[in-house]
């Protein structure tokens, strides 16, 4: 049984200088900046921009796209703040407003689609492809986010960090999907998007604490 004073002595003997973390907002911006650069390059190289520009002329779509991107950004920023022990837990609700806007604008799109296309609006489009796209793009993003967060103290509040981070990653993946998904969503599409986001969030909430706990035992 180690006494507390022995423990203090051994921790002090083990002390190595550490590099202080940059402020969470700056770290989040750096991470997001790198991601945006990557997505911009890929979408430009695959010639997806002209179609996207044309679709953005539709206000509803522009709002949906903006809300999707904002949900992603807000989720990632929230994850960075929540990873620090002394920051407010209220950062958790940062992604909520854009998330509501995202669902509302997509929902409105479905409704309009249904009005114009009638029963066809209920068709199963290529929804399962969307689900696979969102989930599989989220995996590398989640890994990248883990590497950005691992020096922080995410394991102190893993569920909240992972929920916010998962939402952020899934939102960014869904926004990227829009470049390769050149049609308005049907109800079924929307449901599949929501399911994809839930899968990503749930997977990160389940896997995250275990991964972060292992990190702690390394430290």
């Amino acid at each position, binding site marked *: 049984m180690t006494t*507390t004073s022995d423990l*203090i002595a051994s921790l*002090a003997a*083990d*002390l190595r*200088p550490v590099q*202080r973390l940059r402020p969470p907002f700056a770290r989040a911006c750096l991470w997001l900046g790198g991601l945006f650069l990557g997505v911009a390059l890929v979408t430009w190289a695959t010639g997806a921009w002209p179609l996207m520009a044309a679709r953005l002329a539709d206000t509803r779509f522009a709002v949906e796209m903006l809300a999707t991107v904002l949900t992603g950004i807000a989720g990632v920023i929230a994850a960075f703040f929540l990873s620090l*022990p002394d920051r407010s837990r209220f950062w958790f609700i940062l992604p909520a407003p854009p998330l509501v806007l995202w669902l509302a604008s997509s929902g409105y799109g479905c409704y309009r689609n249904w009005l114009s296309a009638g029963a066809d609006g209920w068709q199963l489009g290529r929804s399962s492809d969307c689900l696979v796209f969102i989930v599989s793009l989220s995996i590398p993003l989640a890994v990248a986010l883990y590497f950005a967060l691992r020096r922080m*103290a995410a394991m102190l509040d893993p569920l909240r960090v992972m929920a916010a981070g998962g939402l952020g990653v899934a939102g960014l993946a869904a926004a990227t999907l829009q470049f390769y998904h050149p049609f308005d969503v049907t109800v079924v599409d929307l449901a599949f998007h929501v399911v994809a986001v839930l899968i990503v969030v749930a997977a990160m909430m389940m896997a995250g604490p275990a991964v972060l706990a292992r990190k702690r035992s390394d*430290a």
Partner: protein
Amino acid sequence: MGEAKPVGGEPDWAGLMARAQGGDAAAYRALLAGVAPYLRKMAARYHRERQDAEDAVQDILLTIHAVRQTYDPQRPFKPWLVAVAKRRIADRLRVQMRRRFRETILTPEHETFAAPETNLYREESDGRELREAIAQLPEGQRRAVVLLKLEEKSLKEASAASGLSVATLKVSTHRAMKSLRKILEKKAGTL
């Protein structure tokens, strides 16, 4: 070196931590020694056992060590410390609660698993009852049981050892079994 410089009566934990981040071991030791009593008081509010509270303090100190790079010296130290401590204590309580929920303290009476070894206690007490019952038998019957059943001798060996004839041993054993059954049944009936 390493002494907490009082700033307005409060020890300068933020300053010590900033120096510890730079690798100043003396400042770090002073900081940890300084926060330990504070953490002990905090942990004592959640843990009834003193050893439990002390374990919590050590757990918090280890966590502080692991996440010391996340402290920003521009910000106050105490909220950072309290947040780390509260998180750790909550985690410990959750684990303890889960363990208490799943585990039951076992007494020998709970040992009812299928493997015979796990039921030794029960067998032991059966053995005791049986030994007591054998002790109550008349001399001849008791001798026959001891020789043939407990020492597991053959009739021939038992006959040689006791000087009794094989037929007498057989009859005695038969009667002994009957008497034992009666004694044990009576005992079971009174339980």
